[in-house]
């Protein structure tokens, strides 16, 4: 017997869906929190947006590593844009976390073939990230 609604999604599908939703909401909350802090510090009054890249040095709002984001969070007073950047990092990591959890979900459902496929996909994602880092 299957539930009439919301549809024929299996346990693994629900797990992945919940992970994607949670990641999206956490990212959104952090982005909004950072924006609110930035507004509270008068950021929206003082700044004119720089849509082009200045020669040399990164403009405000550009973080190039997770370490820089964490440094911004630890600073006193805290950099509000680092909070927003953390939200973006959470958003970027969400699909990868979802695939990692899918491996566990498929194993629990007894589907070894798809646990292996999800593991292959996760490995490929990690390799892609490493290759990207290597090029840089």
């Amino acid at each position, binding site marked *: 017997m299957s539930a009439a609604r919301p549809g024929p999604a299996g346990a693994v599908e629900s797990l992945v869906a919940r992970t994607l939703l949670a990641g999206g909401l956490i990212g959104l909350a952090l982005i909004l929190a950072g924006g609110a802090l930035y507004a509270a510090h008068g950021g929206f009054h003082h700044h004119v947006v720089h849509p082009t890249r200045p020669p040399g040095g990164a403009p405000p709002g550009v973080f190039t590593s997770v370490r820089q984001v964490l440094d911004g969070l630890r600073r006193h007073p805290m950099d509000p844009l680092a909070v927003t*950047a953390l939200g973006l990092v959470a958003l*970027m990591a969400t699909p990868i976390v979802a695939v990692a959890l899918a491996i566990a979900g498929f194993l629990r459902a007894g589907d070894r073939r798809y646990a292996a496929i999800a593991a292959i*996909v996760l490995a490929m994602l990690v390799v892609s990230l490493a290759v990207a880092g290597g090029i840089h």
Partner: protein
Amino acid sequence: MSLTVFSLAVLFTSVGAGAVGSILGLGGGILLIPILTIFYGVDIHYAMGASIISVIATSSGAAASYLRTGLSNLRVGLFLVMATISGALVGALLAGVVPVRALELILGLALSYSAFTTIRQLHDELPEHLGEDRHAIRFDLGGRYHDLRLQREVTYRAQRVAPGFAAMFGAGLLSGMLGIGSGAFKVLAMDYLMRLPMKVSTATSNFMIGLTASASAGIYFSRGDINVLIVAPVAIGVLAGAYLGTTLMARMRNTTVRKLFLPIVVYLAISMILRGLGIHLL
């Protein structure tokens, strides 16, 4: 431009990009990059950084809903994304080695052909019969969903899995070599080659593009292409747009989705042929 005005304008634009992207399985970069660069004067690198985040946000926002309703097929997505990512990795290695313009020309012609096949099956609501493809049976590449528009359960199974898998590898290869998104090719491969229902094709593409984009987001981030002040309103707008898009798409006919998809294929075909001839629209 003042930051407040800029943020609000980009936010509203992104709602539209997220809605269209989530309906068509594209991620919205194809719309967002030209708008950001032409109308808001955003640097192309920042626009591409914003686009990659918008793809992930669209995908996460939409796939969460599509997976729950069965429109996004997790197994089909994971199975095919193996081909796309390995294609993209090989493509990145080959970038700079292959003659790009010849490739763009070939791709443009292939897309023109796809546009004709899309026109030919424009009025097919659902694939006629369930396939007997042995790979589809072996890898359980099928499923069912409740179609809100047709008011019934739709059961489907992939056909021509081997060519579909090869096409996905090709899609990844091209996106790696040419630095373009591959959402449209994924949808074409699933809809035309594998004969999945159009809505399942775009919804599953939606799930897949998030995975491939998150793999390449790292490089944009470390290059300094992701500017928080530009990306934040994009991410918020796109998440809201994706939510809106999934609600709309669940109630659309498969033929409606295909009709909306056609202009994108035509645009891509024309811009690729022009690029092959040395004329860049953007």
